[in-house]
Each structure stands twice: as structure tokens, then as C-alpha cells.
């Protein structure tokens, strides 16, 4: 009788685990590592599930881990960064999604400190200046949300997670103490 194959004989598992565990979002641009994951997604999902992690494949094809536990402080700050950007793009372009993924953004021209309102929101995320934003952007790059080349930012597909968050909230009736926040201004 021939031996049944081991579903969990997955190549480069420790590398994938390390990357995903530290919050990296893996998308096709990540080459081999992504290709291995995408070749047998269900085996990886089952294996990670067995040790308590939820490996998710987004409809745009990228992978990431969630714990389903409390939101992390870091992710909250990242969310503020994205929502300010979306708010700005919605006032200027026909589609936030297209503008986000089809354009590049010089780091020095990010809109996050264009207005006092945005600056206050960024301060809330402990990002009070363009200088403070630089290491934060590097962090976003290491998590796979964007890439930076010659000081120019290109958003990668995992940024779509924050677009999803906005759509989810827009579909949720406003809370009683949230009056007046529903319509786009």
C-alpha cells in the first residue's frame, strides 16, 4: 500500500509563518513566497487554524492572519492614515479605489497635513508631522500595504482591507450618538 501524501508537508512553512505572524500581507508581488501559499491555500489555512490562527485569503488574492481578538493599536493608527487619505481622494477623484491603486503618491505630497482637521486626526494617531510619518510608512511597507521607491508610494492590493472597512461601516446604521455622519459632504 502506498503511503498517503502528507497535506502538511508544505514548503517554506517557517518563512511563511514568520512573515504572516508579524502582520505581513502577502500578495502576488511577493513572488515565490506568495506563489507557494497560493498553490495550496486550503492546506495552509487548515494548518494555521489548527494552531489558533485565521489565515484569510482576500477576494483580491492576498493573504493575512487575523486573531479575531481585540484591535491592535498599530492597526488603529494605520486605519486613521487610510481614512484620511480616502476622505481626501473622495473629494478629488471619481473613484477612491482607482485613485488608490492606479496612482503613485510622492511621500512629501500626502494629504495628511493639508488641513488642520487632518492634522488633528493624525495627531490622534500619534503621527503629528510629515517627519513622524516616514518611519510609519516604512512600517506599512514591511506589513505589505504599500511599496516605497524614490520617496514615492504605491499602494498594494492589501490596502483594500481598509476600503472594505469603510463599506462595512457605510452599511451599518449610524449609532444614536453618531448623527450627521452618514452622508458624504
Amino acid at each position, binding site marked *: 500500500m502506498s503511503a498517503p501524501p502528507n497535506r502538511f508537508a508544505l514548503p517554506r512553512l517557517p518563512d511563511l509563518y514568520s512573515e504572516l*505572524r508579524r502582520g505581513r500581507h502577502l500578495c502576488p508581488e511577493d513572488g515565490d513566497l506568495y506563489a507557494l501559499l497560493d498553490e495550496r491555500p486550503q492546506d495552509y489555512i487548515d494548518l494555521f487554524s489548527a494552531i489558533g490562527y485565521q489565515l484569510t485569503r482576500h477576494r483580491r488574492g492576498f493573504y493575512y*492572519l*487575523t*486573531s479575531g481578538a481585540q*484591535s491592535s493599536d498599530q*492597526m488603529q493608527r494605520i486605519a486613521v492614515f487610510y481614512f484620511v487619505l480616502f476622505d481626501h481622494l473622495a473629494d478629488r477623484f*471619481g473613484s477612491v479605489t482607482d485613485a488608490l491603486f492606479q496612482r503613485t503618491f510622492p511621500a512629501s505630497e500626502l494629504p495628511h497635513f493639508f488641513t488642520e482637521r487632518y492634522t488633528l486626526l493624525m495627531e490622534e494617531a500619534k503621527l503629528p508631522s510629515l517627519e513622524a510619518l516616514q518611519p510609519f510608512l516604512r512600517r506599512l511597507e514591511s506589513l505589505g500595504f504599500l511599496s516605497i521607491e524614490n520617496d514615492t508610494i504605491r499602494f498594494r492590493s492589501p490596502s483594500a482591507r481598509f476600503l472594505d472597512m469603510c463599506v462595512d461601516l*457605510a452599511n451599518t446604521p449610524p449609532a444614536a450618538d453618531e448623527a450627521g455622519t452618514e452622508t458624504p459632504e
Partner: protein
Amino acid sequence: MAQRHLLLEMLFRATEAASEADILEYIRSTRPASDTTEGQTVFTRLREYGLIEPLADAQNRYEMTEPVRALLEHLLQSYRVMSSEAIGGYLGQLERYTERLGAAGRQNDSESVVLVLKNADALLERIRTDARNSCLAVMEKTTEIKSSLQSTPLRERYTQISHLWSTNIVPLEEVIDIHNAIEGVLSSLTATLTSLTRTFQTDSVITTRVTETWAKVRRMRTQTFTAYREAKLALEPLYRSIQREGMVAVGAARYLKLIEAKGITGFEQVAGAAAFLSHGRNEALFSDIDAKQFLAKATDYHPDHDITLAPPDETGVQNDDVGILQMLDWVHDAGDVSDLAEFLRTKIADFRATHFFDLALAALDSPEIEVQHGTEPTETVMGGQCWYGYPISVKLKEQIPR
């Protein structure tokens, strides 16, 4: 009257029937400098030429006649769309006509019946025309929006399209929806028409007029449905595409307002946001080293035979109850435990790898337990999967009375 195009346009754009005084004011304000005709004379001519007519059920109220309105609509390329408010007005007016028809029928008042039927016909025609105009307005505006897709910011486009949808498609839906109030009014009208044909069956004038009104009801329904279908076909793709993008803008704006009001912890108040923003880390479940070791073992595992998984042990302690103290009790009772995973599997119902990691980590941290790694790999079924790894043996450091 040809020089009075401004007056005609003003009458055309009037949103409701005007009084004689209103019309005299229109005449005065639009009078060409070279025209010295008295206002009252112009007013009389408007009536004589059939440009305006009195509203049947209102004292001293006039409105533009339907043929002239239709002509001006064409000339001005301006479509009077059917708003929800207008439908409310039509509804009330149709109800009144129906009541008056019923009353006239009961009194055998053929003259009143003819007059009211004429007004009802005009109203039905107006609804039909408005429906058609709504459809044309939607198509015209849709083309306009499509041509400026790239240059119009999302918020503006979202507002335009949502407005177009709510002011044109929704009212058309209201007219064709058979469960809507207007359907009730139309049913009541047709029932009254049926009654009139019985009451005036020998009066050919009445029966002919009733038949015409009936035909107008049918035509209005059919054409409104067609207008609705065409307008929806034109606008729906654009409406659907803008919906998601619009929601991104709405959601982002709501989040920002929430943060402004409640600080960054405002995220915690949004259902689902916490899960969205949860990180890959699942603290305190087990250490990286344990997990990596486990994953490495899983990778290396090569079974030499099919493994039949045992059914879950329902008799064990429910896993939610198990903590380090419970484990210490078990280890105390058992003495030396040569394979902690296998040992726990016999103790805990629905035993899973996560429980093992939890308790193994607790054992490693416990000052009361001595832990040693085995040298021979073993197989353990956890969570419906067979795991292969080096066993952990545990024993209490001292036989502490428990």
C-alpha cells in the same frame, strides 16, 4: 402671442396651478417694452387660444393645457420629472375625481360625469407624460454623467446619481408598484368607471367617455412601466458602480467623525472593526518557538499508513474548564506523565492543538512542574488531525500534597 415666449415659459415652469392674479403678474413682468396690450386682454387671449384652462375642481386656478405643455417640453428640451411629491398630489386629485364621479353617477348627473372624466383624462395623461419625461431626464443625465466620469469627484458624482435615482426611479417604482397607494386609487377609479357604465348604459356619450378614460388608465400603466424599465436600464449600472465607491467615502467620513468625537478608541464602538483591525498575533496562546517547532514537525511528518481518527471523547472534562490548576491535579494523581499531549487527550473532551499549547506553555512556566522533551517522536490526535512530534514528559517537582 409669439412675442410672449417668456410668459409661456413662466407658465410652463409653474409648479402648480396659478390664480388669475398670478398670471396677470406673470404678464406684467414679462411684457415686452414695445407691447402696450392690457394685461387683462392678454389673459383673455391665453384662455381663448386654449393656452391655459381653468382647473376643474378649483376656484380661479389656471394651468397650461396639456397639448401646449407637451409642445413646450419638446421646444425647451426640458423634462418635468415625476417627483414623489407630485405623485402625492396626483393621488389626492385622482381620489377626488373618483369620489366626484361616484357622486355624479349616484345622482344621474351626466353633465358632471363628462366634466370630471375630462379632468381625470387630463390627469392620467399628465402622469403618463411625466413618467416618460422622467425616463428621458434619466437617460439625458446618465449620458452627461458618463461623459464626465473622470473629471467629477466621487462625492459629487455620488450625490448626482443618488439624487437621480431617488427623484426619478423611485417615483416611477411607486406608480408601477401594485402594492402601492396609487394602485389602490386606480383600482377604485376603475371600479367607479364600471359602475358608471351600468348606470349610464343607454347614454352613448358617457359610455364612450368612460371607455376612453379606461384606455387612458391602461396606457398610463403600460407606458409608466416601460418608462421605468428604460430609465432603470440606463441608470442602474452607473448606480451600482457608484454605490460601493460612495460607501467608501461615506464610511471614511463616518470613521473620521467618530475619531474626532471619541478619539482613536472610537474604533472599538464599531461592530466588526475590532476584528478587522486585529493583528496576526494571538498573544499568550503559545510562543513562536513552540509553534515553529510544531509546524516543522508537521512538515516533516510522513505517515506510512492511513490514519483512522478516533471519535471525540465526549466523556472527558470540557476544555473550557481546564487550566493549570486542573492539570496539576491530574499530574499529581498520575505521578509521572511521559507524553503530556497523549495524557491530556484522554482527559479533555474535544481536545485540540491549541489546548495542548496552552497547557504545555503553562507547564513550562510553572515552578511546580518539571518538563523534559522526549527523544522518540510520537503521534497524537488533536482537533481531528494527527500530529507528529517529540513528546513532552512532565512530573511535579516535589510531591506537594494537593
